[in-house]
Structure formats: structure tokens, C-alpha cells
């Protein structure tokens, strides 16, 4: 199984997770900028976070053979704080950077006027930068939130195939598919969506424009849920090719619209092979646990 996890917050995860991801076939990840659990109070904490996504986290992932990419945005929750909204002025320069494959996560949290404004502004930035958009759907009032999301996307003039609407479930998947956008599903240990319900959705809607992620973060989550979904698909009679489409080709096709995905093996790692035990790669300090 080769896997691109299109939505995973690796800054919140350990090196054990990177090892497990690589061993399970995850060769590339996309880390969307999001809320950190603790509210930010200034632009500086955003830019330090964005910089760490493009610097330290990319380096850390590469030590384990994983290609790390990011999506950059002001998230909907913090769009409601005027101290945070100032970061909007900084976002366009981040959208030019290597490895930034979309604007995201944008969308709604509580569906306030401030969220409307910030969402629309960032859709414009995506258009300007030629990037696709990763949209988060709200946890509360999800169906209405999804409808409003799709309306705003339509009004923005952005082509629907450049939009991935995430955290979907049985109630709103049809809306998103009918709009022509990509449908994303976050497979969690006990909420949102699990791998068996996911398989049922794939049986009902097919494997086109369907994308599965672990959305693993600092909450209760499992970075291997993409793999588990692939296994559940195989057990339910889907082919290896179907699994490859959902776990690799679909997320690659979506993010490749950025022209900014890097998928060749990290130097020192061979495609499809585990790293050779005992072989140290030049400068692999994280791998060896050194803190210089």
C-alpha cells in the first residue's frame, strides 16, 4: 500500500508515529495549518507556526523517509479574534513557498460574519496564488455549514475541482459530490467517521473524487487510520487498485493542482522499501535522537 495522508497534524505527533507511518507505506503527508488547542493571541505565533511547518517539520519528516507538505491559512475558529486576523496580511507570502500545496484549513466554525469575511478573502488568495483549497466543515450544524460552504465557493468563482471539502459524513457527502468538489473523510477512533462506515460510503458513491485522511492531531486520533481504511476496503472486496486510487492517486491528483508536490523518495530511502537497519544517513540527527 502506498499512501499520501492528505490531512494530518504531525507537529502534534511523535517520531514513533513517523516510523509507524513509513512502515505502513505512508510516503507523503499534507499538514494543514490549524488551531493549536490553546488560542493564539498574536500574528507572531502564527508565523512561527507556519515557519515550523515549512522548516522543522519538513526536516523531521524527511528523517523518516516521509515527504511533508503543508497548507497555510487562518483557521475559522481564530478568524473570530481580531488579534489573529492580522495574519491575513502575511498569508500571501507563505502561499508562494515550496511544499505549500493548498490554502487551508479554511471554512466555518460557528458561521459568524467574521468567518464569512475571512473565508472569502482566503478563497481570493488561493485564486491569486493558483492553489487549490482545503475546506474544513464545522463540527456543529454540519449540514447547514456544508451548504453555506459550497455557496461561498460557488460565489468565489473557484472551480469546484480545486476544492476539497473535508470531515464529511453520510449526511453531507452527496451535497459535496453534486457540487463537483472532492469529498474528504477523516477517519477517527470514535467520532466523525470510522473505516467501516467509510467502506460503505465507497460502495455507495464509488472511488472517484473520494479522499481519506487520519486528521491525527493532539486529540484522540490514530495516524494509521488511512491504512486501516485500506485494509477494510480489501476485506470488503475492493481491489488493490481501488485502494491505491483512494489512498494515493486521489490525494495526489488533488494536491498536484498546486504544482508543488514532491513525491520522489527522500535521499537515502528507496521507494517501497523499509530503511536499512543500522545504516546512518549523513546528518540524520533526529533519527539517532541527538539534540545538538
Amino acid at each position: 500500500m502506498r499512501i499520501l495522508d492528505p490531512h494530518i497534524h504531525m507537529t502534534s505527533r511523535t517520531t514513533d508515529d513517523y516510523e509507524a507511518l513509513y512502515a505502513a507505506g505512508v510516503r507523503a503527508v499534507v499538514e494543514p495549518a490549524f488551531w493549536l488547542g490553546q488560542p493564539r493571541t498574536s500574528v507572531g505565533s502564527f508565523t512561527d507556526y507556519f515557519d515550523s511547518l515549512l522548516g522543522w517539520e519538513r526536516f523531521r519528516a524527511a528523517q523518516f523517509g516521509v515527504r511533508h507538505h503543508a497548507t497555510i491559512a487562518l483557521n475559522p475558529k481564530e478568524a473570530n479574534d481580531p488579534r489573529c486576523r492580522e495574519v491575513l496580511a502575511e498569508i500571501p507570502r507563505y502561499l508562494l513557498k515550496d511544499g505549500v500545496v493548498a490554502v487551508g484549513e479554511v471554512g466555518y466554525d460557528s458561521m459568524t460574519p467574521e468567518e464569512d469575511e475571512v473565508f472569502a478573502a482566503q478563497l481570493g488568495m488561493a485564486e491569486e496564488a493558483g492553489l487549490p483549497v482545503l475546506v474544513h466543515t464545522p463540527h456543529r450544524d454540519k449540514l447547514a455549514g456544508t451548504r453555506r460552504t459550497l455557496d461561498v465557493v460557488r460565489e468565489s468563482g473557484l472551480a469546484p475541482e480545486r476544492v476539497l471539502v473535508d470531515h464529511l459524513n453520510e449526511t453531507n457527502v452527496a451535497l459535496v459530490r453534486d457540487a463537483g468538489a472532492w469529498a474528504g473523510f477523516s477517519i477517527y477512533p470514535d467520532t466523525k467517521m470510522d473505516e467501516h462506515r467509510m467502506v460503505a460510503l465507497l460502495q455507495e458513491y464509488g472511488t472517484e473524487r473520494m479522499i481519506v485522511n487520519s486528521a491525527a492531531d493532539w486529540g484522540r486520533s490514530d495516524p494509521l487510520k488511512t491504512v486501516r481504511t485500506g485494509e477494510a476496503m480489501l476485506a470488503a472486496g475492493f481491489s488493490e487498485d481501488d485502494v491505491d486510487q483512494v489512498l494515493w492517486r486521489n490525494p495526489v491528483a488533488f494536491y498536484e493542482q498546486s504544482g508543488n508536490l514532491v513525491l520522489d523518495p527522500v535521499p537515502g530511502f528507496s521507494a517501497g522499501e523499509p530503511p536499512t537497519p543500522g545504516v546512518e544517513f549523513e546528518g540524520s540527527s533526529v533519527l539517532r535522537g541527538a539534540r545538538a
Partner: protein
Amino acid sequence: MNTVTTGIPAGTPGAVWLDEALAGVARDPDSVTRAFAFAARRVGRAPLRPDTDPGGVVHGTVDDAARAALVVALADAVGVGMGMGTCVGADADKDCADRLVLLYRQGDGAERRGVLRGFDALTERGDLGPVGEPTALVTAGLELAADALRANDPSLVAAAVGPFGARHLDQHTWRHAILKLVFQGVSLTAASDLDRRADDELGRMARDFAAERRAAGRSVPADLDRLTNTRLTNDQPTNDRLSSTKE
């Protein structure tokens, strides 16, 4: 003249892009920001010396070299080196320094390496003036090198001990940078002018480090030999520093 050798074969799309980007910077120095961000996507990320340095950590990558060339083009565009020692020269230095600090601060890891390697290229071209009379550019380079040397990414540390670091870092900072390379498992061939700058104190630090590694039952990097006055082996007694420390 742009003196940076990028290793990009002439006539390839990467070389064509770089030529256009360099000409663009000559016309409009502000265009360097976008060129810096897109360099790796246009010229690739291959190591400059794949045989000995497959990760491009020690000697850098093609995009590092392309960015260094952009730094040289930027320096030329704002007039660095044209009026050395004059007011016009000092203004150009300050302008270039401010631009390079911003490129570094707003850059990702690879862009930061590119700025550091750009300082190397300016050093080798003789644009930075004599040691001991720090210009605005040298002061900026030292500030950025200090930042890079705090990083845990070995490619940044390696990029800070090239010709610029060898010429301008103070001895204490330089020694710690060299020891950090050893600590991170990066070949000391990353360091320019190692034999000229290595001193007894660095030898002592290296021997102490070797002793610590042996005490932990770990191997001693072969490179450490280059730093110690005596030949080091893994079975040397651990109190060797007591008999050979000079400072």
C-alpha cells in the same frame, strides 16, 4: 559577473529559468523574493556532489547554488562592491544586508541555506571587505549564521561554516559550529579552511567529545581525527585530555 557554479546543464529548462530570474533581479531587485521561493521547483533539488554527499547536506544542492547565484545578482543589482569604502558603497551594503536578512527570516529551510551560501559566494568574490572592519553585510551575515548554528537541521549548520563562516565567525562560535557538525554526524569537509582555523582548544573539545562517546560505549566519528593533535582511536584511554591539553 555572477561567479556561482550551479551545475545546471546549459539549455535545460532549469538553466533557462535561472538565467531569466537573474536578469529579472538585475532589472528589479524585489523579484528575488519570488525567484527564491520557486528555485527548487524550477531547477530541482539534486545534491551538487551525489557521490560523496547524496543528501546535499555537506556541499549543498542545485537549488542552494541557484539561490546563491540569485544573491550575487541581488548584490550586483543594488551596487554592492562598486564603491567599496565610500558612502555609496555603504548604502548599497546596507540595502543588500536588509534584503538578505528578510529573505532569510521569511525563508523556509532551503531558502535560508541559499542565503548562507550566497554569503559564501560574496565572500569568495571579495565583496565583503577585510576581516576586522565589519560592513553592514558582514554584520548581517554573522547574525544569520548565528541563527543557523542554533538550528537542529544539519544542512543549515553545514551552510554556515563555508567560506563566509571560515573568514568571519569569531573563534569561539566557529569551534562550537565545528563540534556541532561532528555531533550531528556531518562530514567535516563541510567546513572551509578547517586546517587553518583549527586550534588547540578545538582539539581539546574534540578529545573530550571522543571520551564522552567512548564512555557511552558509542563509536567515535572518524572525522574527529582531523581536529585532534594526536591520532585518535577508539581504544585510546579516556583521560587523554589531561596529558595533551594546552589551554
